[in-house]
């Protein structure tokens, strides 16, 4: 079974530029998550989708971050404009309630550096 795929793996941009990350979850997983992991910290949930609907986006900085999950499969996370403090690893995860729990499976992440 293929895992969670993310691209790109690394991205370097100047502040005030825009950037987008892509995630393809495990096939059949209805729930998709985006996390921000700042160096030295644990992952922090940015947004959670159930199919193509948003379940929780309470910690998403909506003035600059946006995310969508069209057709309930792939998802993109966008930052516009980027700030220095957005430098972090952005992790995508997916889960399936069919397993009887909500174990989350993570992709390799995208490391963003904002200069």
């Amino acid at each position, binding site marked *: 079974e293929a895992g969670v795929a993310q691209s790109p793996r690394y991205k370097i941009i100047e502040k005030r530029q825009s950037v987008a990350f892509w995630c393809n979850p495990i096939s059949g997983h209805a729930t998709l998550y985006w996390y921000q992991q700042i160096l030295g910290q644990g992952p922090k949930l940015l947004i959670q989708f159930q199919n193509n609907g948003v379940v929780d986006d309470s910690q998403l900085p909506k003035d600059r971050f946006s995310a969508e999950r069209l057709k309930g499969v792939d998802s993109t996370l966008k930052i516009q404009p980027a700030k220095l403090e957005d430098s972090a690893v952005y992790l995508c995860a997916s889960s399936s309630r069919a397993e009887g729990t909500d*174990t989350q499976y993570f992709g390799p992440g995208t490391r963003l550096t904002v200069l």
Partner: protein
Amino acid sequence: AQSVTQLDSQVPVFEEAPVELRCNYSSSVSVYLFWYVQYPNQGLQLLLKYLSGSTLVESINGFEAEFNKSQTSFHFRKPSVHISDTAEYFCAVSPLSGTYKYIFGTGTRLKVLA
């Protein structure tokens, strides 16, 4: 609301020695508990999870963790570590209902010394 505390930010240990990584949590509702490992430049990999039943959960790789409800802890142990176990370890909790949102601790960096 839930919170997770991993008191040890770094744990150095010699190869083949035992190790315990501590995790304490706070929650007003019952939770699932997880341990994940993160190797450099990689995502998080699930090591162990406690959902219900026996309070001691074990993996085929020799890891184990014990859920202690009275102490609200889920400490991770391995009787003999290898150089390859060097990584960042994260404890996480998730409520049994609702959005199943994960709350992660700040992580413990395990460094195994030769």
